[in-house]
C-alpha cells in the first residue's frame, strides 16, 4: 500500500480528489463496471476510484472488463492484486453487466488507427455491436444510476485548421464512402444508438467525446505523432516530424482526465454531451522540442520533406461546457505531462528489462 500511496500516479491524483471527493459521494459503496477498462482510460479511472477508496473511505468496487488482461498484468499489477478490483476478460460485444452495478463506464472504442484502416468492418462491429451489448445488458439492471459512454472528437469530422477549438455543436459532414471515415461514422452511429436507448429504455446516458490524452499507461509504440517522437528520443535517434510541424494538438494528462471522467460518470446529466480534452493548443514542433529537452543528450529534431499537399491539421476541443458545469481541473501543463509520461515509460522499461 505504501508503494501505491507514494506512486507518481497517486501523487498526481490526490490533490485533485481532495478538491472534488465530496461531489463524488454518490460513488460510495457503489459498483463501477468499466467496459474496455484494460487500457489508458480504464486504468486511470481505476487508479482514481481506488485512491478514493484508500484515502477517502469510499468503499467502491470496480470491475474491469477487458478483451485481454495482458496489458493490465504487465503495467498495473498493483490494481489487479487489489481486493476492490476484479477483472473479467471478455469481448465488449459479449458484455453482461452484473446486477450489482450502479455505474457503467464504457471506453471500449478501439483507438488504434491501424485497426480502423485494415479492418474497418471489425472496427465498426466493435464500436456498434459493443455499445449495443452494453445497453441491452444495462437495461436489465435494477439499480443503475448512470452510464458514461466515451465516444471521440472524431465524430465531428476533420477540424478546419482555422477553427481554434471544436465545440460540442460544431458538426461537419463527411463522406461515409471514404474508408478512412468509417471509424468516425461508426462512432456517430453508436452515439445515435445511445440516444435511442436513452429514449426507449430510459437509460441514463452521458456522452463524453474524447480528444487526445497523455500519461502513464500509454506506450511509445502507439502510432500517434507524440509517441513516435518519444520512441525516437528513447532510442537515441533524431526526432522526425512529417511536414513542417505546424499541425496543432492538445493533450489532457491522465490524472486530470480521470477526474473529468469521474465527474461526468457520477454527476453528469443523462442526455448531455461533453468534450473531454485539453483546450490548450500546441504545435507539433513544440511538442518535439519538449520531448528532446527531456533527454540529457537531446536528440535533434528533423523536418521531413513537406510536399505541398500535406495539410496542417488541428484537433483541439472547446471544453467550456464541462469546465463551466463541473469546474474540472487543468492541473498539469503539457510540458509537465510529456515529462511525466516519458519518465513513466523509462521507469517501466527498466522494470520490464
Amino acid at each position, binding site marked *: 500500500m505504501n508503494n501505491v500511496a507514494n506512486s507518481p500516479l497517486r501523487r498526481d491524483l490526490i490533490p485533485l480528489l481532495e478538491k472534488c471527493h465530496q461531489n463524488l459521494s454518490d460513488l460510495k459503496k457503489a459498483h463501477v463496471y468499466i467496459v474496455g477498462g484494460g487500457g489508458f482510460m480504464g486504468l486511470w479511472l481505476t487508479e482514481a476510484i481506488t485512491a478514493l477508496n484508500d484515502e477517502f473511505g469510499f468503499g467502491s468496487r470496480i470491475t474491469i472488463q477487458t478483451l485481454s488482461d495482458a496489458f493490465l498484468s504487465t503495467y498495473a499489477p498493483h490494481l489487479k492484486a487489489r481486493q476492490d478490483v476484479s477483472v473479467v476478460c471478455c469481448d465488449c460485444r459479449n458484455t453482461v453487466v452484473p446486477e450489482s452495478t450502479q455505474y457503467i463506464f464504457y471506453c471500449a472504442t478501439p483507438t488504434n488507427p491501424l485497426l480502423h484502416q485494415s479492418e474497418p468492418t471489425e472496427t465498426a462491429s466493435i464500436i456498434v455491436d459493443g455499445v449495443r451489448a452494453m445497453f441491452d445488458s444495462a437495461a436489465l439492471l435494477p439499480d443503475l444510476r448512470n452510464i458514461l459512454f466515451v465516444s471521440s472528437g472524431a465524430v465531428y469530422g476533420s477540424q478546419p485548421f482555422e477553427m481554434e477549438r471544436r465545440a460540442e455543436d460544431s458538426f461537419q459532414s463527411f463522406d461515409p464512402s471514404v474508408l478512412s471515415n468509417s471509424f468516425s461514422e461508426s462512432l456517430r452511429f453508436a452515439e445515435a444508438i445511445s440516444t435511442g436507448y436513452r429514449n426507449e429504455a430510459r437509460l441514463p446516458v452521458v456522452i463524453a467525446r474524447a480528444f487526445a490524452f497523455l500519461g502513464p499507461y500509454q506506450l511509445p509504440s502507439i502510432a500517434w505523432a507524440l509517441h513516435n517522437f518519444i520512441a*525516437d528520443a528513447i532510442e537515441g535517434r533524431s526526432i522526425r516530424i512529417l511536414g513542417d510541424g505546424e499541425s496543432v494538438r492538445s493533450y489532457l494528462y491522465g490524472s486530470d482526465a480521470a477526474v473529468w471522467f469521474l465527474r461526468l460518470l457520477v454527476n453528469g446529466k443523462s442526455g448531455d454531451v461533453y468534450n473531454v480534452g485539453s483546450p490548450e493548443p500546441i504545435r507539433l514542433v513544440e511538442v518535439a522540442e519538449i520531448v528532446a529537452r527531456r533527454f540529457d543528450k537531446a536528440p535533434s529534431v528533423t523536418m521531413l520533406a513537406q510536399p*505541398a*499537399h500535406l495539410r496542417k491539421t488541428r484537433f483541439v476541443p472547446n471544453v467550456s461546457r464541462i469546465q463551466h458545469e463541473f469546474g474540472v481541473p487543468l492541473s498539469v501543463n503539457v510540458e509537465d505531462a510529456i515529462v511525466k509520461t516519458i519518465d513513466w515509460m523509462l521507469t517501466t522499461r527498466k522494470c520490464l528489462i
Partner: protein
Amino acid sequence: MTKPQVLISDPSLRDGNHAVRHQLQASQIAVYCEAADAAGIPIVEVGHGNGIGASSLQLGESAISDEVMLSTARSHLKRSRLGIHVIPGFATIQRDLKLAIDLGVDVIRVASHCTEADITQRHIEFSRTAGKTTYGVLMMSHMTSPTGLAEEAKKMESYGAEGIVIMDSSGHFLPADVADRMKHLREALNIPIGFHAHNNLGMAIANSVAAVQEGATIIDGTARGFGAGAGNAQLEVLVAVLERMGYDTGVDLYKVLDAGDVAEKSVVEVVPTISSVSVVSGLAGVFSGFAKPVARIAEEFKVDPRDIFFELGRRGIIAGQEDFIIEVAAELAKGDSRHKSREALATNVIELKTTRAGNEQRS
C-alpha cells in the same frame, strides 16, 4: 524563392537486377555506388530484383548474397542513403530485415501487390521501430482503381509509412492514369507520395512528370533506364527534365550523366529497349520482370511470347506467380489458350480491364 524539391530514389541495382537475371556482381555494385554517390543521388536501392530475401529457384537466384550486396553498397556510399526493397513473404523480419539493418541500410521500402497492403503492417512497424526511413510501396498499381489504391495506401500510412510510392510495374499507365491516381493519393494521405515508372509504352518520363505535377515528391529513376522489361524512367533524363521544370533534386547533372556512362560501361549488359514483347507486356498489364522468363519459356515451348503475355494479363497474373508462365505456355502449345489470347490481343485493353475488374471484386 526556393525551388520545390523532388527526392530521387535510384533502384538501378535492384530493378536492374531483373534485367540481368539477378546476376549483378559485387564489383558492379561497388563501381555504380561510387558514381551515384558522387552525383549526390539521395537514395540508392540495392538487392535482388524482387527485393531482399527473394533469391530463389522460382524468382531467380542472385549471383551474390544479400549480405554481400548490401555490405558492398554500404562501403561505397558516403552521402547517398542505402535503400532496400522488401516484399513481406520473400523477406522475413528475423532473417532478412534485421540483417539489412545490421548492415547499415537507411531506407526501407516495404512493398505489396496493390490490393494487399495488409501484409506490410509488421514489416513497416519493425522498420519504423528500428528508426529507419520507411516507405510503403504498392506494386502493379494499375490493377486496382484509384480509390482502391488510396485505401490501401492509407493502410500503409496507418502502419507508420512515411511516404507511399506506387509502381507502374508493367508500364501500363498513360500520363492521365498516373495523374488520376496521384490526385486520389494526395487527397487521402498526409504523407509524401511517389511514383516508379516502367517504360513499356515509352511513357516512363512522361508519367513521372505527370506524377510530379500532381504532387509526387519521390520519383524513381535508373541509370540508362536499367530495370525490368523495357526499363524504368531513365535517371539522367529524369534529373534533366526535373531541372528544366524548375525542381530541385539535389543531384549533380554532369555527375549523374557520368554515372549513366559508368553504368552502361560496367553494369548494364544491354541497355533496355522497348521490344515488341515489352509493348505487349505493357498493354497486357503484366509485370515487366516477366520478360526474361517469358522469352525463355516461349522458346522452350515454341509459342509466341506475346501470346503468353496476353494470356497472363487475361488471367491477372502478378509477380510471384511465375510458375503460371509455364502453365500458360504449355496450354498455348496445345492450343488450349490460343483462341482466348488471340481474342485478348484483338480487344486487348477492353477485355483486360473487364477481367481485372472481376479479379478485384474477388480479391
